[in-house]
């Protein structure tokens, strides 16, 4: 039996759409029991354990700007399994599988849709999950 870890992605939508770097416009954090690496940056490494549930959520820094997670894709397996015309109707949560190798970084990509248009998609390729080595 595992617990739950919430991973929150905060996006300054106007900064991101204005061409600011991800370091200036994206920050990530989680509430896991073991403090993450690089919290407050788009390079968040979340410690997790098999059987635990992970929930991803997005918060826009300016509340009136629309933003939603369009997909989460693990580099190791591709995906996403679902697409939706309206990303705001998707919820992103799942259970950490037992097959993960402790100490290995499992990088993933979060695609964020901000409003609608040719600049709408923001791809964050730098976060990762890791199952800590047993101490």
């Amino acid at each position: 039996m595992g617990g739950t870890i919430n991973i929150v992605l905060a996006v300054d939508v106007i900064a991101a759409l204005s061409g600011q770097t991800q370091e200036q416009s994206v920050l990530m954090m989680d509430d896991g029991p073991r403090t993450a690496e690089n919290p407050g940056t788009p390079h968040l490494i979340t410690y997790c354990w098999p059987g635990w549930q992970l929930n991803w959520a997005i918060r826009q820094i300016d509340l009136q700007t629309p933003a939603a997670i369009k997909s989460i894709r693990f580099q190791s397996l591709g995906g996403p399994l679902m697409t939706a015309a309206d990303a705001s109707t998707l919820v992103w949560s799942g259970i950490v599988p037992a097959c993960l190798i402790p100490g290995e970084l499992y990088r993933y990509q979060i695609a964020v849709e901000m409003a609608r248009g040719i600049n709408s998609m923001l791809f964050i390729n730098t976060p990762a999950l890791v199952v800590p080595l047993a101490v």
Partner: protein
Amino acid sequence: MTQQLGIVVIVDVDAALQAGTLEGCTYFFENAGPFGSTGMGTDRLVSAINGTYWADGSQASEQVLNFVVTGVKSLPITLPKDYAHIRARQQELQTLAAARTLAADDAAANNESPVNFFARLRTPQYSTIRSPSGQRSETILLDYLGQPVSATFDTSELPSRRAEAGVAQIPPIITDITGEAVEKGIIYPAQYGSPDLVNGGWYWSATVATFSPRVWSYTLHIALYRLVQDLTTHQATWEPVQMSIDAKLNILNRPMRNGFTGGGTGLLPIGMP
């Protein structure tokens, strides 16, 4: 997840007062145009609202509407709320500085006479705002460029060569939100205190219960202000004129789905690194 929607209402107060209605004189805007809202820039706004629900039928998200009302002839809402008083105070300080200079120059036998000085003296034009509930408060008349409109001693100076300075109107205010959507419990409007100090530090917000998909209408009750000047006392008063206009919400029906599985929660799709 809460989503906030800003609804901006701009009123052509002169046209509305002349026509006796807000219809055709009101322009609605909001920032969900790409998501299905219609009627931008017209008096017939239909806001698209995502009514999302979970598999068990319960409501998945709530929507908050924030209303901002202003007049075409009002100063930008981004200016400080007490901007008129700040400007009047600056003008008073300038007048005092000029008076001190005159006194000093007088001592040095300058030739400007106090009569000329007083002829050019400018003081702010105060006005009374009568709120829809009858309370009275005071403000200072500014033009569109933020300059105090002067009650000068020498009135012959007024609209001569220069373009006639317009008096910036105090913005209309929402006094109530009613209608079908409120009666049926679809939206819960309330007036909130705001640190932004727009409209006296109060603004109207509404929480939308998004579980009833269809088009719902609501009515905005808006007080416009007519500037009335007493010809004998020159006292200027902003008198409220109540009007109303309808707008609509189109609540769409959208099931929430898990992005990884399309259904319930499963194992994360992670393979070998």
